[in-house]
């Protein structure tokens, strides 16, 4: 009898514990080793861009919450930023500061989920619970300021929906004072763990050239050693007034991508602290007409979201509804290199690699 081996197909997802939603990868496996990977996104496509065409400019804001639902604030921001550019609206200083505060809080919240989910992907469930415990504080802050925890819809064209409530600043400071302790805990539980390092170091290295070539952005790009953060490289809003660093990885492996998020959270906390100190008085909304009706034209604006560069392209035909809205979703673009990255690694690595890119399916599929 002759024994022969053959490759087989494994359908990973869309129902799978660690595809971060309903993502599907068709893996061709040789034993445990991935020979070929075909990512198949689209299971969460809700047609947000098309829906936006039949809504007024303000009505689109709640849809953007549902893009990257882990950082709804940043998604709001990306969209209103583009509409403001289209209408040439001046945003008052106080509103910009509030945007920075909630935006950076959202970045921390999003990175906390990424960090925790990554620990769970690699097999340590406890890390997941720890980060979610601390994310809860941010959710509470969002609830205070916007009434919603996950989908705040807090930004408006020309400013923010409401001024910050009493007690918000104190509570925010409390969180910032506590946060370094939490980071220490993550470092002890996850980062410093030998097994975690063995699992993530030198896994799926992305070279700087390749990262730029594949148009990756956000932590995935910076982990490869490319110092490109829109907040520094092309400051928007009031980011040029804060003193912060852009952490950069050295190798571009899974560990760097994971650890970079921890470092970024530290910097975000620093920015929030500065913003709270400098927070000016004044109006929270610029001079925007009740009915938003931009003149015909188009605008493209980018912000640095938690996953990467979030771009919004808005075309106006002069009516109250946008003629066309398109979102450049960083999660989706970052996934472009996945099939190449997975090749040659084990199934367990495939999960770790996917987790290190940190995708949110709401954003990937829009």
């Amino acid at each position, binding site marked *: 009898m002759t024994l022969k081996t053959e490759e*087989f197909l*494994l*359908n990973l997802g869309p129902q*799978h*514990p*660690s595809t971060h939603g309903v993502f599907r990868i068709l893996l061709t496996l040789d*034993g*445990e080793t991935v020979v070929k990977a075909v990512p198949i996104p689209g299971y969460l496509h809700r047609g947000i861009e098309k829906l936006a065409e039949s809504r007024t400019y303000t009505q689109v804001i709640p849809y953007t919450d549902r893009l990257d639902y882990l950082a709804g604030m940043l998604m709001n921001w990306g969209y209103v930023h583009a509409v403001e550019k289209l209408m040439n609206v001046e945003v008052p200083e106080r509103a910009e500061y509030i945007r920075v505060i909630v935006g950076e809080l959202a970045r921390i919240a999003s990175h906390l989920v990424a960090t925790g989910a990554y*620990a*769970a*992907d*690699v*097999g*340590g*469930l*406890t*890390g997941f*619970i*720890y980060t979610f*415990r601390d994310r809860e504080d941010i959710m509470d802050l969002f609830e205070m300021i916007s009434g919603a925890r996950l989908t705040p819809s807090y930004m408006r064209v020309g400013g923010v929906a409401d001024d910050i409530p009493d007690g918000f600043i104190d509570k925010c400071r409390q969180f910032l004072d506590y946060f370094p302790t939490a980071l220490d805990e993550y470092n002890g*539980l*996850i980062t410093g*763990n030998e*097994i*975690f390092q*063995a*699992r993530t170091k030198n896994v799926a290295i992305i070279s700087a050239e390749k990262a730029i070539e594949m148009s990756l952005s956000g932590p995935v790009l910076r982990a490869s050693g490319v110092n490109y953060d829109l907040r520094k490289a092309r400051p928007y809003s009031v980011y040029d007034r804060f003193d912060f660093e852009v952490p950069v990885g050295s190798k571009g492996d899974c560990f760097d991508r994971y650890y970079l998020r921890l470092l970024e959270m530290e910097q975000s906390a620093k920015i929030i602290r500065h913003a709270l100190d400098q927070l000016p008085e004044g109006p929270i909304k610029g001079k925007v007409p009740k009915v938003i009706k931009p003149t015909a034209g188009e605008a493209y604006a980018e912000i640095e979201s938690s996953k990467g560069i979030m771009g919004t392209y808005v075309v106006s035909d002069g009516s109250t509804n946008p003629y066309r809205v398109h979102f450049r979703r960083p999660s989706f673009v970052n996934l472009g290199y996945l099939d190449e990255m997975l090749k040659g690694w*084990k*199934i*367990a*690595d495939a*999960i770790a690699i996917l987790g290190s890119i940190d995708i949110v399916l709401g954003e990937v599929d829009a």
Partner: protein
Amino acid sequence: MENLFVSMAAGIRSLLGSGGLSEWATDFLVMFLKLGAILVYILVSALWLVYMERKVSAYMQCRIGPNRVGPMGLLQTTADIGKLISKEFIIPKDADKKLFLLGPILIFMPPLAVFAVAPFGKGMVAIDMNIGVYYFLALASLSTVIIWMAGWASNNKYSLIGSMRVVAQMVSYEMPLILSIVGVIILTGTLNMSDIIHAQENVWFIFLQPLGFLIYLIAAVAETNRAPFDLVEGESEIICGPFTEYSGMGFAMFFLAEYANVVLVSVMATTLFLGGWLAPFGLTFIPSWIWFLLKVYLMIFLFMWFRWTYPRVRVDQLMEFGWKVLVPLSIANIFVTGIGKYLYHSLGW
């Protein structure tokens, strides 16, 4: 207290004897009762260990854990099992039906069989077998075959990957497990569990065989398929491994068998390295079987601690660690133990 169970057994025996039963029938009935008692203990303890695991993990994760069903949630797992029993047992269309059903039936066999030789206290061993350690090693690895069978019969790709991992893991970790125990056997010169415990009256073997204990501990975690060596289930990778297709009580059997195995390796660790039922510091007023259970549950807690702290290793790292680190280390341990014993005897140290 000390002789609670021993005198109970003697009482039952004399009762049966006075009832006019023959010697042989009395022996048979007493043995039956002893094994029955162990069976009940293991099953109940597996059930409650699930509760313990949930509580331990909850406190490690800043949660409270089950606290609604019964006092302090003590009846939670009982309720869970009740639910699982009432659920439908789904047999996949393409599964090998006979083997698929046989899996959950057989999975409890190896741990239960091994407990027959476990010394729970002074004189409290159902069958004092002179090859007890050997018997344990032989039977404990049998569960691999059963899990592999279950995964194969499921006819699911995730199950198949999980089953292959079981085999790979067993092959790499059974070796260091056995070799780590050899050190103890060299010191005692016996395979009988009770004799091994008696040999530890002066000093526990954890102090004479620290490396052996460490290797045993690591190999035992791999043997029970728990984190950081839970590749077989590997929830975030291969859903639930060989148990993916099992539902209802079929799943529960595998789930509970894992805990029976945890008790088993803890019992062995206690017997071989922690002095079994011997009381430390001469605290003999506490009955031996309480000491034994205390040590066992301490070991179980250690396993739970591992599980809720460590991430999972990768399959190639697992094998590499087993073959390239644990096996050479355990062989070195045997070597050092042998030389030590030789010097001890010849030089009279």
